[in-house]
């Protein structure tokens, strides 16, 4: 049985997915890759938008894409440090 991901891991996975798709992915495939229920995904997605980890952009045809902001890239860079810190201090 696989371990349930914690909140920080889920955020890392979503942001990593965006980065791996050349920093441009539609919301529907992002939901599929995230391995979350649509309800959970909607909550995380909203949180990431509010915290400005990702932003939505539209192409010329008006299709919506998700891209990482500088803050999102920063989170990905810092993720291992954050996890290490939390584990070390048992927080």
């Amino acid at each position, binding site marked *: 049985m696989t371990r349930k991901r914690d909140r*920080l891991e889920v955020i890392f996975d979503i942001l990593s997915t965006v980065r791996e798709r050349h920093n441009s992915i539609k919301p529907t495939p992002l939901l599929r890759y995230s391995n979350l229920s649509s309800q959970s995904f909607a909550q995380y997605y909203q949180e990431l938008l509010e*915290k400005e980890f990702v932003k939505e952009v539209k192409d010329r045809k008006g299709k919506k894409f998700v891209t990482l902001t500088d*803050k999102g890239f*920063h*989170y990905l860079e*810092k993720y291992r*440090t*954050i996890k*290490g*810190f*939390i584990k*070390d*201090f*048992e*927080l």
Partner: protein
Amino acid sequence: MFWFHPTELFAEIIYTLIIVCFCFIIYYKTKGVFELTKHQGINYFRKTFLFLGLAYAARFAVHLFSLSTIVLDYRIPRGTPMLLSLVLTGYLSTMAIFFLVFSVLWKKKKETRYFTLISNATAAGISIAALLSKEFFIIYVMQMVLLLFAIALSQTKKKTRGLSQMKFVYLLILVFWFVSIALLGPKRGIPFELQTFLQVVSLGIFAFIYYRVEKWL
């Protein structure tokens, strides 16, 4: 209750300054990682050191009486710093204990809505009790009871026995806080050397936490 010895007062100033600096640096260092993650454990952890730093600073206020006679050639009325210190130390240190305990337990406890209310009410209660009794000893006793209750709470539903290294360090922080409060009381029988030794060990624990924070952030 108060002593007046320049060497001991100087040692007390240095001890308080270093601890307050460690606490505020830890609080500042963890700001970025908290703002990035909004992780509750990190939130409680950094607030522990904010309140602990303020509590150590408030604890020092009892020595303002002695310090004023040296530095200002003026005697601050003896009761004022003591009452101020009692109220602030009681409140701030109790909050620090709550935050430290909660930084470790928050994942296990599903019900966290009343944390702010319970912690503030308890801290205010201890603060008022200290003010009425005009004794640091009451803070010492009530916080000790609080800590024992927290330890008992953390042991419920626990599968493994014993303390991890970091929890042991957290416990030592609280033990040395109690020692620092005890040193404010009548100190007949506690030699200056022993007091200094305890303060150095206490500083070592804060330095250890600072080193670990510095390593990661």
